[in-house]
């Protein structure tokens, strides 16, 4: 049996209003990051609703090294924090096969 080891990696989560979905997906694709997007009512993502009016919001999860994730998060914050409902948070998680999440 092959021995696998755990590696630290950053998990960036973005909660945002639904109309930003296509734009954020495009930005992620351009940045060559692997990500997953889900969408649903605000309640489906726990108690954190990004706005008090939007019926739907999206949740994006991105895995990458700190520098990559930080560069992307900063760019998103610069572009959308002023007028859009968007929340970003990051935590360190452990993964097997870290090369799978390297920038494509």
């Amino acid at each position, binding site marked *: 049996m092959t021995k696998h080891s755990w590696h630290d990696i950053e998990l960036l989560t973005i909660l945002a209003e*639904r*109309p930003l979905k296509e*734009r954020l997906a495009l930005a992620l694709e351009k940045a060559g990051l692997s990500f997953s997007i889900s*969408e649903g009512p605000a309640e*489906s993502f726990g108690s954190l609703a990004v*706005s*008090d*009016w939007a*019926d739907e919001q999206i949740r994006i999860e991105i895995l990458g090294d700190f520098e990559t994730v930080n560069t992307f998060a900063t760019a998103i914050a610069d572009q959308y924090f002023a*007028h859009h409902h968007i929340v970003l948070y990051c935590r360190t998680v452990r993964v097997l096969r870290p090369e799978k999440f390297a920038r494509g």
Partner: protein
Amino acid sequence: METQLLITNLSSPIVLAFALGVLARVIRSDLDFPPALHASLSIFLLLAIGLKGGVALAAVPIAQLLLPVLMILLGAVLTTASAYLVARHFLKVSVLDSGALAAHYGSVSAVTFIAAQQFAAREFGQVDAVLTALLVVLEAPALVLGVVLALGASSRRQIIEVVSETARGRTMVLLGGGMAIGFVSGADGMRTVSPMFLDLFQGVLMLFLLELGMLAAKHMSDLKRLGMRLVAYAVILPVLHGALGVALGVWAGLSPGGATVMGAMIASASYIAAPAAVRMALPQANAGLCITASLGITFPFNLALGIPLYAKLAAWWS
């Protein structure tokens, strides 16, 4: 007669389902729709209405479309302008918020269209085949005009954004795409899919309205915060717009049923396409104000009282 029309409408399954949805929210029922179901139901309804519209349109000479399309465009311009002016001078909201509200009220709600079509078919028999095409035409112009009113002439980038957002949006893809499929495959082709898209239509619509009632009730709870002026705006404006829409429908040569639907279309406010497009083009505008007015007030008003009123006007003026 008026009372009878109202009772017929209020006792229809779709209006009652909507009321049940509102009630479920008010009593804090644990009734909940899975997130994907709302999207699935709206995909079904938009595609079905597009298919039906496309098949019906195949039998209509193109020349017959011209006048109704011109009238609906005129309606879009007039209602966007009036929604903007009333928002500025009666609600006294900013230029940006007025433009955003105008975009919502000049555009159209597909579900109001469907409900009006059902009502008109019940009351007047067949309705005009051109109506679905008018629904497609009515969606975008008001969104562009609303952005221009909000930002002035220097809004080229935002206009492109709105047009692109609307053209790629699910409403346009499903309605326009469904119409194209229905138009090309014709009545014979439709027979193969009618057990799904025609026979199940009423039941799916009822489910959708139940869920929409819950969603609308959520926004109704914001009314206390936003004030009675917004309620007056979201009720009086559709009545005026509806009367204009009926008149335009009659001038366009539509049947009383068709004029009823045109009145409801012009009276309605968008709550799917407009919020998405306006959020992208006018992110500084108050989105909560727009969605509460359109979904929390105008949609239930049109569904319960507006549509029978427009039917009455259509019967008088035809």
